[in-house]
């Protein structure tokens, strides 16, 4: 499998490490230190353990460890592995690119 890094170009997947589902960026909003009620427990259980396994497109984080050391957001088809989109995970304003 190859991933077309927006910074480096097409590279073999072994240069990258997979982090996980890119749609799970929002942690459950529970006050620190407060006891968790049933709803909060359920929200945290979902966030930590439950993953979608869609038979179609999936957005996921990949880290270009052996290249530009940037986090990427990749859209990959779960049946064919075809990658339809790759973008930087961070907005360009935070990347400091000249």
């Amino acid at each position: 499998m190859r991933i077309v890094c927006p910074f480096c170009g097409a590279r073999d997947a072994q240069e990258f490490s997979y982090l996980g589902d890119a749609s799970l960026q929002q942690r459950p909003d529970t006050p620190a230190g407060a006891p968790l009620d049933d709803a909060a427990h359920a929200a945290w259980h979902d966030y930590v353990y439950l993953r979608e396994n869609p038979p179609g497109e999936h957005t996921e984080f990949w880290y270009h460890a052996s290249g530009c050391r940037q986090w990427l957001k990749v859209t990959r088809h779960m049946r064919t592995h075809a990658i339809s989109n790759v973008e930087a995970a961070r907005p360009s304003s935070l990347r400091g690119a000249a």
Partner: protein
Amino acid sequence: MVDVSIPPVVSALAGLATAGQRLGFKDGEAGVQIAELTGVAIASIAARKGLADDLSAKVQTLFGLPLPSEPKRVAAGDVSIIWSAPGQWLVVFESGGRQRVSDLTAALRGLASTTDQSDSRAIIEISGPRVRDVLAKGVMVDLHPSVFAPGNTAITLVAHVGAQLTCIDAAPVYQLMVPRSFCLSFWDWLISSAEEYGISIGAKGDPKKG
């Protein structure tokens, strides 16, 4: 008193090969020339948040070179600047040693974080008619001149070692930057891969200066 004098940059490959040596296949012209670039000082610079344009302007006045915004190398005189990541670059000084890194750190204060990388990487220059055949044994990046021309650089894995590969000249000449602690392993791969074409070991730079 602690000695605070700046130590010279030491060769990463000292003892592994001697300039003028011929290795591998002995008949005819050597297929590849391999030389370590010695006496080189290297600095990494990372733009401070929101100051990339100011940094670029400052570097332009210092060296007359732009900071490449894509994987490229630019060079003038004894200074070259190599893209490393978005907002990050390597500045390579072929003379003047670590003092140049100190001077750069002072000049870029407030605009960039500067780190001396002279002891982190070895620079190996490879050239000759069979150089692409050698690199093909460990490089996963397309090196065809139509896509990887002089000035192009790639941070990638070469024989499982993290390396920065740069095309210096269409001759072709390539430069490989590898972590010094992996040098012995990398050197073994390089020599084993190039043996069948014949290798002549060269020298670049002054190993005593740095």
